[in-house]
């Protein structure tokens, strides 16, 4: 049961929703070890995305929607997360190409490309206390689930769960990239806001898959 454009746009809408709901939480996390704008930044970006989503042509494929998110985030978010998350979507869009339906392998490719895009721009390594610490376990878990022959929905659920654990696992870390790196030891005990928002994005993907499985043609 592959996932198509309905899933993709549902994922995006759910992300916008969940980012808006968690705006204050993300701002608070970022106030603690950054500059207090992460929730505001993403909320501004996804609000702009929502406004554009209806303009997608009726024959749009998942890659088109991902590219729209990419360019919109890049041109509205700013900060570190704008180029990073934007590039994630841009590379994800490239990875799925013109494919109208994404199977498990395509989803793993999408997630892997997204993560690689963030690394390409931000040069962070796992354990640096960045969004990579949510994305990398998510990519690994999705690949394992896919190798186990799990469904698309199960693959995304595995990714989301791993991202959530990854985000939580940033708490004891010292940061080596981004603003939190200025804090040294004092970042310990705080969750990385970008890892947290990444887990929200991935949970939205899984929720959308659970919900729309069967609706896509």
């Amino acid at each position, binding site marked *: 049961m592959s996932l198509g454009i309905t899933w993709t746009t549902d994922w995006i809408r759910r992300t916008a929703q969940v980012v808006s709901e968690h705006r204050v939480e993300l701002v608070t996390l970022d106030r603690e070890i950054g500059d207090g704008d992460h929730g505001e930044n993403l909320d501004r970006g996804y609000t702009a995305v929502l406004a554009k989503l209806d303009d997608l042509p009726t024959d749009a494929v998942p890659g088109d929607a991902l590219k729209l998110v990419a360019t919109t985030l890049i041109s509205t978010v700013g900060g570190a997360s704008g*180029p990073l998350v934007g590039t994630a979507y841009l590379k994800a869009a490239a990875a799925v190409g013109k494919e109208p339906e994404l199977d498990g392998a395509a989803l793993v490719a999408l997630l892997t490309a997204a993560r690689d895009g963030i690394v390409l721009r931000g040069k962070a390594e796992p354990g640096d206390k960045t969004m990579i610490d949510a994305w990398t376990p998510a990519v690994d878990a999705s690949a394992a689930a896919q190798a186990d022959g799990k469904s698309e929905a199960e693959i995304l659920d595995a990714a989301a769960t791993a991202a959530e654990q990854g985000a939580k696992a940033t708490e004891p870390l010292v940061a080596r990239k*981004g603003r939190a790196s200025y804090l040294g030891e004092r970042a310990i005990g705080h969750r990385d806001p970008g890892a947290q928002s990444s887990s929200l994005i991935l949970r939205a993907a899984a929720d959308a898959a659970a919900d729309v499985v069967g609706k896509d043609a």
Partner: protein
Amino acid sequence: MKKLINDPKNVVDEAVVGFEAAHGDIVTVSHDPIYIVRKDAPVSGKVGIVSGGGSGHEPLHGGFVGFGMLDAAVPGPVFTSPTPDPILAATKAVDGGAGVLHIVKNYTGDVLNFETAADLAAAEDIEVRSVIIDDDVAVKDSLYTAGRRGVAGTVLVEKIAGAAAERGDDLDAVVAVAEKVNAQVRTMGVALTPCVVPHAGEPSFVLADDEIEIGIGIHGEPGRERIKLEPADAIVDRLLAPILEDLPFASGDDVLLLVNGMGGTPQVELYIVFRRAAEVLAEKGITVTRTLVGNFVTSLEMQGVSISVLKLDDELTELWDAPVQTAALRWGR
């Protein structure tokens, strides 16, 4: 949160309207996308200089647009780097055919967004070079951090590179002078109180009534250490020590001493700080030949101060003294 604002979402939009109304003799403001250019931009044959970054550090950068300094400033949302679009638009607006320098403070967001804008400008055949400012000695410059931050030294780079461009230096030369200033300036700051980002509505951090944050960043990022309040002289000594250690400032050197207010500090306090800083430098045989005191690179209403020391030579001194006509820095015309 008590602020003289309307909707937090409109802070930057409304401020630039006011800025244009107040300084229409010096600048023109584009509102969509938002950037500020000097009135006579582009100046044909002159290297264009663009800087920018999150808002909330005023007068940086808009207050430094004008003759002898920046050609354009690109203000992002409060404490958030602008996106590539307005940076690209500003770059095009100031391109006089001699190339454009981007002066970028070293924050991941600024670096990435300016980088993208530079790529896009190159695609439109505008030669863009970037100089990354990282003068903040509070942060260890190591593999384990995002590198030093760009703070108050930025205003010195903008003034001096601006003068080089104004006298007709080519892009290589302007880049070289900007890099030289960045290489020779060191800054360290302290916060007595936090700032409140309008959309956050809460203080960026919490300090007890008797605590100060040594090595504060200009976005309310925590610094090196939190200590008990001390007399001003002791604080100045703490700020100057890592500056003087870091660069081999030597007896006999001429320097520019900048005491920069973080936004909410009364001017008397800046001068009390200046007094001690000048005293310490004099004891080390370092001569303060140029000075700057005031709010130049701020963090909204934060109370605190940063001290910058720039090692001067004849060229830098001459460029510093050259005429400048901006909203926030002006002499010689």
